[in-house]
């Protein structure tokens, strides 16, 4: 009985130490938000670069339009 109580106490102590260590390691929420915002800004730029390729398409259209005008 005493032995099991001691083991339970030991286990709880270890758990408390682990939780407090983890708390120390955790970043402040503002830094977490900043990190997330960094991910977002990079993703947005990747997406925007895909959308930017539409500008090449408009260039092709304008060239075709000019050629059609010349031919008319």
């Amino acid at each position, binding site marked *: 009985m005493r032995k099991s109580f001691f083991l339970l106490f030991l286990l709880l102590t270890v758990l408390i130490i682990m939780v407090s260590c983890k708390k120390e390691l955790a970043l*402040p929420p*503002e830094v977490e938000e*900043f990190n997330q915002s*960094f991910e977002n800004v*990079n993703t947005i730029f990747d997406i*925007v670069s895909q959308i930017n390729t539409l*500008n090449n398409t*408009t260039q092709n259209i304008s060239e075709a339009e000019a050629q*059609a005008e010349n031919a*008319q």
Partner: protein
Amino acid sequence: MNKFLKIFFLTLILISVFSVQANADLKSKISNSQAQEKLQQIQQNLPDEVENQISAKVYQIFYTILGKAINKGNEIIVNVNQALDLQIKMPQDIVDQLRGELDDLDKFLQDEDTKLKQAKNIDDLKDIANALVVEMQKVVFDAQVIALKNVDIFINKADSALLVLQTTCGADITQAQIQLGILKSKLDEYENQLEDQQKLSKEEMQIKLANFDPQEIRTEINTLKTEIETLSTSCQ
């Protein structure tokens, strides 16, 4: 006397070389102008049937290019929507704005596709081409505005993170603040460029949009991220 003869022959050779060259130039000019005259004559005397064939060919090429442009637009819509589906942590308003742009473009492309199928002549195609260019430029422009808005959010988050790191563990944030200042001025520069674009013609807009290179601003963002990462690691 000998010297005089040498100079005389040398001059003679030079004159003959230049006259041969001048003759060749003149001949090529004459043949060019003759060819142009001939071409004009041929164009004027082209039978209607041949002219119609040329117009049909031009129409066909123009039609194909417009069809391809609409397909390209649809392809981009699918790819970007798929990329947005994966972004569960991105602010909802940013996702909604991008999806809104894509939805508008999607509806527009469907309408233009219908108009393209009903087009009867080159003038109809020109109208479609013009509408496509204007709408696509609008979408590219709006996407660039959204990207810069997101950089502004990033700057605010960086500001708060630096303040917390300074107050909670006394981190020296001087260097990071300098970097933040550089990023802010870069953002101003880009925002001014976008403001200018609104006053441009279709052709000028095309060049400006193509020159929008976010690489510089991305480099500054990465540098700031490294600075803050180093500070937060030393704080832990």
